[in-house]
C-alpha cells in the first residue's frame, strides 16, 4: 500500500514544477492530491455554489425584506410572512397547487404502473408500443402546450371538428377557459406528457422482481389478480414510493403549461403557487414577498422528498431484492 501511494503521488508532486524551494516541499508532500482535488472540484463547486446554493440562501434572506429589485433590500422582519397568511390569492394558489398534486397522484400512479407493467412484458409488440409511448416526453412543454391550444380551440380546433363529425356534443367544451373543467384538463395534459417517466420507473421495477416468485405462485395455481396483489404490488413498494415522490415534487412546482395556456385563469381557478410567485416577482416586482412563496414551495418540496426518502432509505432501489429469502 505504501509503495503504491508514493508512486502515485510522485508525479503529482512533480507537476508543481521544478521549484526547489525547500521549506515548501514537506507541505506539498503532506497533501499531494490537493491540486488535482482543487481542479476537479472547482467547476462543480462554483457553478453549483453560485447558481444554486447562494440563490437558495438569498431566497430565505429576501423573504424577510422589502425589495423591488432596485436599490438595496430593506429588512422588514416577518411582515412578508404575516402577509402570506392573510393573502387570499396566495392561499388559494397554494390550495390549487395541492389539488394538482392530489389529482396528479391519483391519475399518474395507477396509469404509470399499468403502463410500466405492460411495457415490462416480453412480447415484441409491447416493446414497439412503449417506444411510442415515450414520444411526448421528448417534446418541450412549450411545444406540447401550443399543440394542445390548436387542438382544443373551441371554435376552430381539432376537437371541435371531431365533435361535429361524430355528433358528440360533449366534445365541444371551452376546455381551456372554463372555471369548472380547465384544472382537470391541465392535469390531463401534464399526465399526457409526463406519464412515460412513471412508465419507465415501473418497467424497471417490475423487471427487478425475480421470476422465481411467479413460478412458485403458478405452481400453487394462483390467478393473475392474486399474483398481482400478493407478489407484484408488495415487490413494487419502493418503486411506488419513488414514483410518489417524483409526482408530488413535480406537480407541486408545475409551471410551464399553466403559464402558457391559462395564465392562472379563468377566475384564478388554475393559479398555482409557482405561477403566483412568478407574477409577484416579475410583474409586480415584489421580490421580498415572492421569496416567501418561493420558500414555501421549496420547503414543501424538500419536506416531501425527505419524508419519502426516510420511508425508503437512501438506497431504496437497490435494496428492493432484500427480503427475498
Amino acid at each position, binding site marked *: 500500500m505504501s*509503495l*503504491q501511494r508514493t*508512486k*502515485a503521488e510522485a*508525479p503529482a508532486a512533480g507537476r508543481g514544477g521544478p521549484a526547489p524551494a525547500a521549506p515548501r516541499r514537506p507541505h506539498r508532500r503532506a*497533501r*499531494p492530491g*490537493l491540486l*488535482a*482535488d*482543487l481542479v*476537479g472540484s472547482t*467547476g*462543480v463547486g462554483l*457553478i*453549483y455554489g*453560485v*447558481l444554486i*446554493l*447562494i*440563490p*437558495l440562501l*438569498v*431566497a430565505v434572506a*429576501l423573504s424577510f425584506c422589502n425589495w423591488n429589485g432596485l436599490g438595496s433590500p430593506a429588512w422588514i422582519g416577518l411582515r412578508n410572512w404575516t402577509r402570506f397568511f392573510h393573502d387570499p390569492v396566495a392561499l388559494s394558489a397554494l390550495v390549487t397547487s395541492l389539488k394538482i398534486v392530489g389529482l396528479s397522484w391519483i391519475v399518474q400512479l395507477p396509469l404509470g404502473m399499468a*403502463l410500466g407493467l*405492460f411495457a415490462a412484458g416480453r412480447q415484441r409488440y409491447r416493446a414497439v408500443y412503449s417506444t*411510442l*409511448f*415515450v*414520444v411526448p416526453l*421528448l*417534446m*418541450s412543454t*412549450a411545444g406540447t*402546450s*401550443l399543440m*394542445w*391550444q*390548436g387542438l382544443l380551440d373551441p371554435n*376552430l380546433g381539432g376537437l371541435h*371538428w*371531431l365533435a361535429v363529425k361524430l355528433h358528440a356534443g360533449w366534445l365541444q367544451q371551452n376546455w381551456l377557459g372554463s372555471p369548472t373543467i380547465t384544472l382537470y384538463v391541465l392535469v390531463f395534459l401534464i399526465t*399526457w406528457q409526463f406519464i*412515460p417517466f412513471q412508465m419507465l420507473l415501473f418497467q424497471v421495477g417490475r423487471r427487478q422482481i425475480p421470476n422465481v416468485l411467479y413460478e412458485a405462485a403458478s405452481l400453487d395455481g394462483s390467478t*393473475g389478480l392474486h399474483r398481482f396483489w400478493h407478489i407484484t404490488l408488495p415487490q413494487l413498494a419502493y418503486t411506488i414510493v*419513488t414514483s410518489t415522490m417524483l409526482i408530488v415534487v413535480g406537480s407541486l*412546482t408545475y409551471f410551464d403549461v399553466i403559464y*402558457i395556456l391559462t395564465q392562472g385563469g379563468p377566475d384564478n381557478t388554475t393559479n398555482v403557487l409557482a405561477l403566483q*410567485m*412568478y407574477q409577484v*416577482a*416579475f410583474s409586480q416586482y415584489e*421580490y421580498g414577498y415572492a421569496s416567501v412563496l*418561493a420558500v414555501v414551495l*421549496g420547503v414543501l*418540496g*424538500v419536506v416531501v*422528498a*425527505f419524508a419519502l426518502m426516510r420511508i425508503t432509505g437512501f438506497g431504496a432501489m437497490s435494496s428492493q431484492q432484500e427480503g427475498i429469502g
Partner: protein
Amino acid sequence: VRRRIGGFTAWLLATIWLIVVLAPIYYMVVASLRSPGAYFTADPWLPGGSGLSAYRTVFSAGLGSYFVHSVLVTTGCVVLTLVLSLAFAFRVARMKTRLPRVVFRFVVLGLAVPIQAIIVPLNVVVVKLGLYDTLTGLTLALTASTIAVSVLIMVNFVRDIPRDFIDAMTVDGGSEWSVFWHLILPLSRGVLVSVGIYAGLNAWNNFLLPLILTQSSSTLVLPLGLVKFQGLYGVDVPALMAAVLLSAVPLFLVYVVARRKVLAGLSGFVVR
C-alpha cells in the same frame, strides 16, 4: 382461456392509450401541411393539404435563429456538464483531501430543492454577474439546474470502477492525469452519453430558465421562441404546428438513433 382474455384486455387498453398519445401528434403533422385558409374550411384531421407554406412562414419568421441559439446553448450545456461532472466524480472517487467530499455533500443536498423555488434570486444573481440576457448566462444556469443529478450519476459510476484497475496503473507509475485520461474516460463512455442526453434534453426543452434569464430576440431559444411566435402568428395554426414539429425534430432523430441511451438519459438517476 383466462390468460388469453387478460392478454387481449392489455392489448386493447394499451392501444387506446397509444391512440391518445399519437392522435395529437398526427393532428399536428396534418395541420402543418395546410395553408392558413384551408385550415379554417377543411376538416383538419384528414390528410389533404401538402403545401409547405407553413414551413416557409416559420423560417421567414426567424425561427431558424432560435434554432441556432438552442443548438449553441444545448451543446455548451452538455460539454460543460460532462467535463465538470466527470472530473469531479474522478476526484470524489480518488480524493486525497476532504474537499471533494464536502462539495459532494452540498451538491447531494441540492437534489431535493426544486429549481422553481430559486428563480427569483437566480435572476438577481445572473443580473449581478452581468450575464442577464446572454446565451452564456443561460447555458450556465441550465447546467446548474441539472448538475446535482449529473454529478450523482457520475460519482456512482466512477466509484464502482474496481480499485484494482486504478492501482495497476499507478503501480506502473501512471500519474493522476493518465489514470483519468486512459482509464476513467474510456470506461465512462456509456454513462457520459446517458448523462449528456439527460442534460441535453433539459437544455433543449427548458422553458422556465430562458423565461427569467433572457428577453431579446438575439438570445431567444426555441421553447420561448415558440411562445413568442404564437403571440405573433397565433391565428396561423398550421405555421404554429410546423414550428412545434421542427423544434422537436432533433430530439426525435436522436431517439430513433439511440433509443436505449435516450431512455437511460430520460429516466435520470431514478431508473438505473
